């Protein structure tokens, strides 16, 4: 009676961007500061 839903696991967007050397650009574009956790990090809400 259990309904199983299979989940696939894929590379995260962060990893994909990192692969292409784009993650730091993305952070700058969105004013993300993963180090100092400024209020701009609200993107993760």
């Amino acid at each position: 009676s259990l309904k199983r839903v299979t989940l696939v696991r894929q590379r995260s967007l962060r990893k994909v961007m990192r692969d292409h050397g784009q993650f730091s650009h993305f952070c700058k574009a969105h004013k993300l500061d993963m180090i100092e956790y400024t209020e701009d990090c609200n993107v993760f809400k």
Partner: protein
Amino acid sequence: EANEPLISYLDLEYFGQISIGTPPQNFTVVFDTGSSNLWVPSIYCVSKACAAHNQFQPVQSSTYQAVGTPFSIEYGTGSLTGIIGSDQVVIEGLTVSNQQFAESVSEPGKAFLDVSFDGILGLAYPSLAVDGVTPVFDNMMAQNLVELPMFSFYLGKNPESPLGGEVIFGGFDPSRFMGTLNWVPVTQQGYWQIQLDNIQLNGTVVFCMNGCQAIVDTGTSLITGPTKDIKKLQNYIGATPVDGEYAVDCNNLGMMPDVTFTINGVPYTLAAQAYTLTDKYAGTAFCSSGFQGLDIAPPAGPFWILGDVFIRQFYSVFDRGNNRVGLAPAV
């Protein structure tokens, strides 16, 4: 006013399939215990992000009914807006009738352009639902589609494994965990919120000394906590800023401290291999911290978020019947 969902879409890795309408239109979604709405892109969406994903076409569905309530979710990079409609939703053979869901007509920023999922299926409590829409699992319970009012998550540890993970509706699978489930009461019925007794590093209580709140959230990939605590924690584990994120030396994993979350008197210990994310970057191993600072403002916060980094190690059962979360070491 509804609370914002907590979705760190940058790190999401686990996705499932659902279909909406008659005949079925397929969508890849995140099963997210940190929000309560179902949304997918609409065919009427004008954003580039929508064009890159499956889009729901209401006119192609004989079971669709318009509702028309405006819908909006705020993200840091913009807002997702749309309208509410109603149709049947099929999840692995379970047909949920008259499910209201949001059809997004505008999606934020460029980030959604590249994500692997089309939409989100929220599994938190109805109090979090934007527009007061009844969540999918509440309809499953009301329509007697599940034998028990609970669902459970297994998230695979090995990225190379063909089975990425599994959600079970209506119960749990003891073969996915070791020992017995430890049940933890839900302290607030919005998120799947629980009480943490304390957080230890190598057996010493360092954070959350007098207890604190946490949510168990499959829509958050890392473990988050108050920024002042996480900054110290990154320091304790030896994480240093590299190209905009906290990284650790992959050769040091064996020397890094265990991090233990004590919940309802039971220790849940994460070794360094569990709380670091190992990846290859420019041909070499790259290890990043699985912790991230995130301040959740009162009255909802502050709280810690036990995301996929935690759930990968501890099979998680979400019991709406008894308002509790069951945890046990995942196999």
